[in-house]
């Protein structure tokens, strides 16, 4: 089993919802980015300036895993590369060595709070407890491995069941992101890669990224705009999950007082 993601650039509406969903899911501090949408100029008429969503490629031959002197960056049997922030020494070699530059060093000065000079919001305070970020260490996307693990423990299938699927995939209204098992030839991601000629970023590095991209015309694929109801529902469902978690924390805080 090897988890992977296919990003259909033809479907992506550049809405930044995946970036926001990740920020909410992991309570990312202001200066830390896991997924990003990067803008670039093209020669295509009417599309002079466009974007591409990027995130950690969860490389099969991850240079960051090989170079980490403390073995803080690890690769799981399911292919997910993650950082153990309780071990990371913050040498930043992984940040430098990542050819895709998808790692962020979380220093104290990257954490001024969302409203510098003001008290942290309830959301930020809850985030500190739900997902504590360790300053002085490196961070990156981990395909929401905690969601995958929790979901699989309930017998759910990542990529099919929302509860076991990365937050960015859940929230994408245009369904531009697809998640699944790359080793399963019948999975949706494997089919997309085969049928749509999906490509990886810089395969010549020999890193074998687990994130694939589909570019160009959609062809016979369904419309790239999801129904409005579905968009709203996906947002509501995601936010309500987080709200429930946050309420638990607020309740505990009140009780402890």
């Amino acid at each position, binding site marked *: 089993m090897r988890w992977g993601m296919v990003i259909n650039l033809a479907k992506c509406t550049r809405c930044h919802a995946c970036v926001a969903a990740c920020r909410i899911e992991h309570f990312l501090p202001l200066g830390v980015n896991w997924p*990003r*949408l*990067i*803008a*670039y*100029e*093209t020669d295509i008429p009417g599309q*002079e*300036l466009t*974007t*591409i969503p*990027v995130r950690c490629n969860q490389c099969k031959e991850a*240079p960051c895993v*090989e*170079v*980490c*002197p*403390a*073995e*803080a960056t690890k690769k799981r049997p399911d292919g997910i590369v993650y950082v153990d922030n309780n*071990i*990371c*020494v*913050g*040498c*930043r*070699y992984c*940040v*430098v*060595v*990542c*050819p*895709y*530059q998808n790692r962020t*060093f*979380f*220093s104290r000065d990257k954490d001024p709070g969302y409203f510098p000079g003001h008290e942290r919001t309830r959301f930020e305070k809850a985030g500190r407890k739900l997902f504590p970020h360790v*300053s*002085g*260490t*490196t961070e990156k996307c981990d395909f929401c491995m905690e969601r995958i693990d929790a979901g699989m423990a309930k017998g759910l299938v990542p990529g099919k069941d929302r509860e076991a699927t990365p937050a960015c995939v859940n929230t994408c209204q245009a369904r531009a992101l697809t998640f699944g098992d790359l080793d399963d030839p019948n999975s949706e991601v494997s089919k997309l890669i085969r049928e749509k000629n999906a*490509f990886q*970023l*810089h395969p010549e*590095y*020999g*890193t074998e990224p687990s994130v694939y991209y589909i570019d160009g015309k959609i062809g016979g694929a369904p419309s790239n705009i999801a129904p409005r109801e579905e968009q709203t529902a996906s947002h509501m469902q995601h936010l309500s999950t987080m709200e429930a978690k946050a309420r638990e924390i607020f309740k505990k805080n009140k009780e402890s007082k």
Partner: protein
Amino acid sequence: MSRMATRQWMITHEWMIKPMHQREWIERRGIMIWIAETFTSLGSGLYLVSLFINSWWGLLVGWLIIMFLKLPLHIAYFGKPWRFYRTMPPFSNAWKTSWFARGILFSVFFGTFAFIQLVFGQPDLADLIGRSIADPIYYVFGVLAGLSALGVGIYGGFIMNYVKGIPFWNQGLLPVVIMLAGVADGFGLVMAVGLAGGDASVTWAETGSRYLLMINVLLIVTYLISAGYSSSVAKLSIQELLKGPTALMFWGGTIILGLAVPAVVSVISLFSGEDVSTVLLIIAVASHTLGAFALKYCLLKVGIYRPLLPRFAAY
């Protein structure tokens, strides 16, 4: 939405779309890496040269540079400095794959072996213990410390060489360039040890420095030419070095101070046929050392990543 309006809210994300500089190891706290890496070259180079000419004072200064300048700076750069022990066995077996971890191990071995060598090489202590016991220990640990110093001097090159995203660094010659530049700096510092009244021969160091300078000029030229052929991003790095924002540091620091001034002093001493004045030698040593700082700065500063997207593969 007009193109202009679109541009206004999207322009801020032009990240990894065009060739982008590495900043972690040269800007802000990254300056510590630059200085630490220079001390790595100076310390290991001096130790190796001193080992060759059996200069106890040279060995001592080399060891002090590594232990009290290089290592503290490297550790201080860490986001979690107190966790540095986690990079070594038994806490981590990363040395099997990581040059960073290997470098830390080399440094620890070097610190230990060189210390033992220095203790048993100290004339008064050696006499006290007895030469028949002290000398074999001195030589055995000298070999071990020398091998470790070689590791310390070369691992930085391999660390940079491993970064596939930066074509200018991803060159087979880089570890050799860094190692030999370190040895040349070692010759410069040995001269300083001799001038300060240590047990190093200034004339011998000057002769060695002369040959090393020639080899280094050849190596740097070869490196730049071959890197330029490897990719257009590497070519961009070279352009930055030769006529871009880093040109002053490259021409003024690496070439003039690091290579030309020591070479001129060396030529003067060769043709004058007599001992060169102390002032000239001090100038040569100082410019050699400044050149070492400039070389490391240039290498780190012009590390440029290839853009992410295949459509920009021309880079």
